């Protein structure tokens, strides 16, 4: 299907919004009514038609707006894109895998014509038609990684693999959840994960590292991660905390449904063929609470997950202070009925919200008929 790209922003007036289709395909991360950190890795080779898992690199209605936002972030702070000198080949690898995947998966939007090393790349949504020489940096306006990631949604970390270890040696990071490429560049896997609580005790990182080191070419993997963001902000970087951190205090019982967003990262891992590096695309999806609860199952489950979440995790994810207000809001969408297993919204089979037996009786009438 052809995609209708949204006219929207991730800053100032925050006109970001999800269409009915985008809500339905949102990658809700909780497969049961509780959550514990785990590696939860699976193969990344397709998924149900129309889902965000279907293609190697998902393109959706936010594409153009996200690319505009990235260009603005880079104009302010060029260090969001860095590549150590030995990572250029990996940058070409990434350019190749994205161009090949997108032209195969979205032939109406992207075209790649290859004649030996002479490549022509057409990106119709962005109005780009460039001819260049593969592996010759002088024929592109930017380095290969920067060139292609200015045209691909999500952040990208390129990890060099040496001495049984992964090294954060290149990246395009403009939509990150509170970490900094400029700080992490050159670090190894354990160093850049040092701030994550609980996971170390569980030995999760040692196992995850072993898994990642062995990701073979031709068999990419994926997992989901999540956090919370007030306002649909893509750029929640430490560099700009002074701008966005303060927004967390702007949450009120009246605006929590529209301002509070669940932020889900679809993390994928691909072995890069020519450099043997690993690329780690982190694709961010945002959904306002009021849209989330339009799927009755998600409303019930979100409430239960947040209620049970250990304090350490709520603190680490940065919403411990707002949690009572979030729970207050979500409780109106939890009538105590059981939820079906799995992450899918199941709108046809899940019972609508029962306002009579909902466990929160504050007397306010609740608009639960949004699921048009």
């Amino acid at each position, binding site marked *: 299907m052809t995609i209708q790209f949204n006219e929207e922003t991730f800053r100032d007036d925050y006109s970001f919004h999800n269409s009915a289709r985008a809500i339905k395909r949102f*990658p*809700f*991360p909780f*497969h049961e009514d509780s959550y514990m950190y785990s590696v*939860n890795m*699976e*193969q990344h*080779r397709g*998924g*149900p038609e129309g*889902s965000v*898992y279907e293609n190697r690199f998902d393109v959706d209605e936010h594409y153009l707006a996200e690319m505009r936002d990235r260009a603005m972030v880079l104009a302010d702070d060029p260090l969001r894109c860095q590549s*150590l*000198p*030995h*990572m250029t*080949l990996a940058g070409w690898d990434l350019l*190749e895998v994205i161009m090949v995947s997108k032209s195969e998966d979205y032939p109406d939007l992207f075209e790649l014509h290859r004649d030996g090393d002479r490549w022509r790349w057409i990106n119709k949504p962005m109005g780009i038609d460039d001819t260049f020489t593969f*592996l010759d940096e002088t024929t592109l306006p930017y380095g290969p990684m920067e060139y292609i990631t200015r045209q691909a949604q999500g952040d990208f970390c390129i990890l*060099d*693999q*040496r*001495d049984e270890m992964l090294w954060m040696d290149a990246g395009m990071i403009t939509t990150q959840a509170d970490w900094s490429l400029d700080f992490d560049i050159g670090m190894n896997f354990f160093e850049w994960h040092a701030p994550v609580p609980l996971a170390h005790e569980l030995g999760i990182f040692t196992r995850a590292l*072993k898994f990642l*080191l*062995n990701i*073979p*070419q*031709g*068999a990419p*993997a994926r*997992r*989901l991660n999540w956090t919370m963001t007030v306002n649909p902000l893509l750029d929640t970087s430490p560099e700009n905390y002074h701008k966005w951190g303060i927004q967390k205090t702007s949450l009120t019982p009246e605006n929590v449904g529209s301002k509070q967003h669940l932020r889900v990262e679809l993390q994928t891992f691909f072995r890069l*063929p*020519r*450099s*043997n590096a690993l690329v780690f695309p982190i694709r961010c999806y945002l959904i306002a609470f009021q849209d989330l609860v339009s799927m009755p199952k998600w409303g019930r489950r979100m409430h239960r997950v947040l209620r049970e979440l250990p304090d350490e995790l709520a603190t680490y994810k940065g919403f411990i202070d707002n949690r009572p207000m979030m729970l207050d809001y979500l409780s109106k969408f939890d009538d105590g009925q059981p939820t079906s297993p*799995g*992450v*899918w919204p199941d709108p046809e089979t899940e019972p609508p919200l029962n306002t009579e037996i909902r466990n929160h009786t504050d007397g306010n009438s609740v608009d639960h008929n949004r699921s048009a």
Partner: protein
Amino acid sequence: MNTPPQKSRPGAEQIPVVVSAIVPLNDLVTRFEFCRPDGQEFPPFSGGAHTVVEMRDHDRTRLNPYSLTSDPSDSSIYAISVRRDEQGRGGSLFMHRSVSVGDAMNITYPVNLFSLDLRAKKHLFLAGGIGITPFMSMIAQLERMTGNWELHYSVRNEALGTYVDQLRYKYPNKVHVYYSDQNQRIGLEQLLDGQSLGTHVYVCGPTGMIDQVHGAAAAAGWPEEHTHSEEFLAPQPGKPFEVRLCKSELTIQVGENESLLEAIERSGVDAPYLCRGGACGQCETDVIRADGEFVHRDHWLDDEQHSSGQKIMPCVSRFLGTLELDR
């Protein structure tokens, strides 16, 4: 997590291929070239990568790793170079005797456990005998990137110098060959001593040679991460033994000429693997009970783990006695 669970299959993804050429290089080594039956291109790969070749030898399936010796930028073919090993368990003999041009086979996507450190200012390659194979693709890759490299290659005699002529012809100033029957030796100490800072050394060859290079580099004060090695471990034959697979509730016999991993697979149990050469760690298996003696041959577990008797790498290691595994 979200989609119907997709169990990852053990080993890397396979590619169906057709044998397109068989070229004897000398008395022992033969080059096999593969193309794709659908005429598609092969995926690009990185210098030093190997592929695991599946051999259907009557009722048994062998899976042997071989370094890719073709040029990584040539996506029309993949090539491997196989040394005939009369003492081995038969994989190389199968390749030499039973494979013909036009045969359909399966090989895996490239896997690289011996990749170039692209930070190096210079790559110094040390090869012994058939250990030349991973360097063939590394050299091709570096030539294309105009990387700085040098090869020191020790062979038994002139007749067995696999790829010597080709390498000398193409890179007369970068290739140095040593014939052991003429008492020529790579002068390690001197060679390492004369290198500029930022040089990385890579060695592939017999165990003795690898140990020597590691020792010499350490003695010369080279940082450990500047020395890279790959040993082409093939599972060795050994006395048959019995293994209880506790999770699968099966008891299996490991034959003289098969590896523990192969015996597990033959019994229909899926076991993880990647390199099948004791280097990647993927096949690591917990031991539940062991009555007898371990024959550890892998490069993955450290000495302490080896002597603990709690883990085994079934792709290359064996056991004398009876063993119970968590598989």
